């Protein structure tokens, strides 16, 4: 199929899709409307279980099973990346020569690294209270580690990043989520049911029953997953190259 024909096809199909989408938009409930039956019920259920951040309550309590599915996608995607980007037989590792980083940039990176790491942990820990949670905090903490690559060089990052530990951490966090779910099944009513632990005082760190635990498991899982992902990409982009003459 030539580019020309394909462009016409795209334009025709796009126009059709656009007409359908606009028609659907005009029939949707008005933006900013007042009818949110599911939302109102979710808010009531969350307050009944002493979870101040309703979104965390939805993610880790009311729809915790759905989050298990999301976590599986995450796990699978990382597994796929690790498989796809492993070193093949016709490739070898070359030590990258360290880059010269301007002193202020290096100082900034080394100063901000711990701050960002602590912020990431803070975001995870306060997930059931204020905006944040395992998904966001995990990414922030994992990104913070890579300031070492940006501010120093790849060798420095490799020294503080024993990949085996992160692989184990990833698997442990994923299984912790499932184990917590099974504990709900054995100890009370159903898989991932939030009735094992006392709900605690509203708006304190230990409130919400199993929500903070599941939240922490996801935080660890996401942080380890992102570190592993970036490690593979960094290896490919910085170190691994094709064997010469092959």
């Amino acid at each position: 199929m030539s580019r020309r024909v394909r462009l016409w096809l795209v334009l025709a199909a796009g126009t059709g899709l656009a007409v359908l989408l606009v028609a659907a938009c005009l029939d949707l409930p008005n933006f900013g409307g007042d009818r949110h039956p599911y939302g109102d019920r979710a808010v009531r259920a969350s307050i009944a279980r002493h979870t101040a951040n309703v979104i965390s309550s939805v993610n880790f309590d009311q729809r915790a099973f759905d989050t298990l599915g999301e976590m599986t996608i995450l796990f699978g995607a990382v597994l796929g990346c690790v498989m796809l980007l492993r070193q093949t037989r016709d490739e070898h590792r070359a030590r990258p020569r360290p880059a010269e980083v301007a002193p202020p940039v290096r100082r900034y990176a080394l100063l901000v690294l711990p701050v960002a790491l602590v912020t990431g942990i803070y975001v995870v820990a306060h997930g059931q209270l204020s905006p944040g949670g395992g998904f966001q905090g995990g990414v922030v903490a994992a990104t913070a580690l890579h300031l070492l690559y940006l501010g120093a060089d790849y060798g420095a990052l490799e020294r503080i990043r024993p990949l085996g530990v992160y692989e184990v951490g990833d698997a442990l966090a994923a299984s912790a989520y499932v184990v917590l779910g099974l504990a709900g099944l054995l100890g009370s009513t159903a898989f991932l049911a939030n009735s094992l632990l006392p709900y605690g005082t509203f708006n304190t760190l230990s409130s919400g029953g199993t929500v903070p635990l599941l939240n922490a498991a996801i935080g660890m899982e996401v942080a380890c997953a992102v570190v592993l992902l970036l490690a593979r990409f960094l290896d490919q982009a910085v170190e691994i190259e094709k064997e010469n003459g092959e």
Partner: protein
Amino acid sequence: MADAVIVVALLLVAATATVAVATRDPARQALVLSVLGVVLAVLFTVFQAPDVGLSQLAVGSALTPLLLMLTVRKVRRRGRDEEHER
């Protein structure tokens, strides 16, 4: 009038997304995508979804650009090696 900030954020998202698609060079597109991440985070804030905004900031401001730029570098280096061999 109270909707002005929503309209501004929505129009910024639409414009940034259009620019991101129209920028054909992957490295330059990664720059636009990182701006798109920030603009989306602002939109989510005015939609009163700070959790989602936080998520978008964490992913869009540093992680996605890093992944894209590392891929660009790998592919370009690959291209250079190949030319070198010929």
